[in-house]
């Protein structure tokens, strides 16, 4: 088991390295020919571009550039050069600020939104799915299934707009239509009502997706032989359901949660854009509109790292829960 975790941890490091390679390559497929062109703009002449490339080491061979880049984003570059451990995610010429200093402000706000929404979704969706499986094909199951179908099929911005119209518009006017604007974590927490609509939009869609899987996974397990065996041994209904079925039905959900982290971050991007919530996704959206590539690629690395960590946790839990899966020969 420990061996598996160590192996999986090494894989996660490799994947992160793979992501940095992909991002590095993305940086070099930017149309218009070069990073310098993208940063200096269409009016820069050949001399200025050559100067920029020389100053930033962009005239060196690609592998050398990649190693340098890797040294910058991990902070090892400056550590070995004797300047202490400094992570350098690049510099935004559009905002005249380093990407790292921008993200230090944005990341906690996004993590708060994503963390609260995901936790809420799991806490609501698991019992909901089991309840629907038990009450399968009855009227309450149909109503809940219809509701989850509709929420799952809603574009998150459309759901958000409807929530704004109901709770922030003329109808009720009880909640702000804009997310918290505070700069520090504490400030954001002091504006909790402003967080309700963004969290509701993001978690409603996620609940719909999780509970549907939980329902079908539970139903699938309820007809398995081991359930019949447990019943034959005289286990009570609730014991069969919450001890035998729950543990097996959670296994596909673990994979789903791991896979959904990217989906939730994507949802957070749209939620932040709609509610004007100054997190990582909102920053990414602005950077995309102004073609601020250093910020775009810096955020991709951070979002990917968060997803890798989430997947790692899900996979370790999967192996703990299901020893049948053979990961290697």
């Amino acid at each position, binding site marked *: 088991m420990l061996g598996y975790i160590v192996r999986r941890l090494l894989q996660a490091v490799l994947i992160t390295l793979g992501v940095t390679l992909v991002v590095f390559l993305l940086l070099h497929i930017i149309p218009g020919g070069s990073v310098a062109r993208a940063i200096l703009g269409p009016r820069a002449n050949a001399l200025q571009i050559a100067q920029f490339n020389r100053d930033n080491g962009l005239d060196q061979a690609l592998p050398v550039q990649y190693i340098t880049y890797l040294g910058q984003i991990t902070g090892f570059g400056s550590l070995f050069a004797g300047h202490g451990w400094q992570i350098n995610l690049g510099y935004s010429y559009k905002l005249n600020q380093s990407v790292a200093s921008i993200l230090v402000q944005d990341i906690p706000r996004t993590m708060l939104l994503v963390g609260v929404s995901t936790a809420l979704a799991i806490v609501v969706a698991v019992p909901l799915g089991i309840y629907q499986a038990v009450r399968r094909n009855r009227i309450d199951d149909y109503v809940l299934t219809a509701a989850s*179908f509709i929420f799952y099929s809603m574009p998150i911005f459309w759901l958000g707009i409807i929530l704004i119209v109901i709770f922030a518009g003329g109808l009720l006017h009880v909640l702000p239509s804009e997310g918290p604007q505070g700069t520090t974590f504490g400030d954001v927490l002091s504006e909790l009502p402003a967080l309700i609509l963004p969290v509701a939009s993001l978690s409603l869609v996620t609940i719909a997706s999780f509970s549907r899987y939980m329902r079908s996974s539970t139903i699938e397990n309820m007809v398995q032989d081991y359930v019949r065996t447990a019943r034959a041994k005289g286990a009570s209904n609730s014991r069969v359901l919450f001890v035998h079925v729950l543990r097996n039905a959670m296994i596909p959900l673990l994979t789903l949660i791991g896979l959904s982290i990217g989906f939730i971050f994507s949802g957070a991007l749209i939620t932040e854009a709609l509610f004007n919530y100054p997190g990582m996704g909102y920053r990414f959206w602005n950077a995309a509109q102004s073609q601020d590539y250093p910020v775009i690629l810096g955020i991709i690395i951070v979002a990917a790292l968060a997803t890798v960590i989430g997947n790692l946790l899900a996979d370790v839990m999967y192996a703990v829960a299901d020893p049948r899966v053979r990961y290697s020969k």
Partner: protein
Amino acid sequence: MRIPPPAAALPLHGETTAEVQDIAPAYESRGVWRLALDVFVQNRLAVVGVGIVVFMVLFCFVGPIFYRTDQLTTDLNNQFLAPGAGHLLGTDNLGFDVIGRLMIGGQTSLEVGLAAALIATTFGVLWGAVAGFWGGVVDALMMRLVDVVLSIPALFLLLFLAVAFEPVDLPKLILVVAITAWLIPARLIRGEALTLRTREYVEAVSMMGGRGSRIVLRHIIPNTVGTIMVNATFQVADAILLVAGLSFLGLGIPPPATNWGAMLSDGVTYVYDGWWWLIYPAGAAIVLTVVAFNFIGDALRDALEVRLHRR
């Protein structure tokens, strides 16, 4: 499980008696697929879903032949017209008729959704089945690549690609969506292949000398066909949502082309003006279409998962 009739009752080559002809079709017609179709048709939601999809396809692709509107030149004298005789659902901020706009917008949404799902599923299934069956180094390399791309959240990757390859046209949009979508089927099928390859019948085939390509194509992929079809259907729904999201953020196909998400993006500005026809029809079209594909996917799941028949 159905037990096949004894060999003597099966039609033999050259036999054409009426009796045999009666037996043969009756046996064939009650195969697994026919049973699945029966279950599918019994599911009323699935029939509704198919109905909605057929309606949407007719509305978007045949509709413009009968309901002619100008969707190329703006008409700023007639912007924000309320629904009425000339324009049944009013006009938008550029004076385009909203129903006509729904039609051409729907063409883009449906085309991208279907094409992207088809490309992504085909590629993903092959990738996942090969990785899961061979295991070892091949599996590790193939799946690490999937993990690398999958760990970049889809919308972030999509947004980046849309910005980097501006201006985005229809084929580019389809390809870009497929690039972000093939990873999920690859992972799902790989997971199934991992457990399928330990099953007795797969071991029996390889013991009898069946080659890897035969096992993957004839035994592993057919046994995951339920997952493939269910996932492909959901892929269409997801692709439509993804494109809507991209367009909502203002980074889809530029005007005068449009899609349902872009219509909402334009309409959101006027949410407090009470011009509901700019907000609700396009949103309803997305939800209706995506719900329909999800209904179909769910019914397929019920119809194809044979274990569930043993109640």
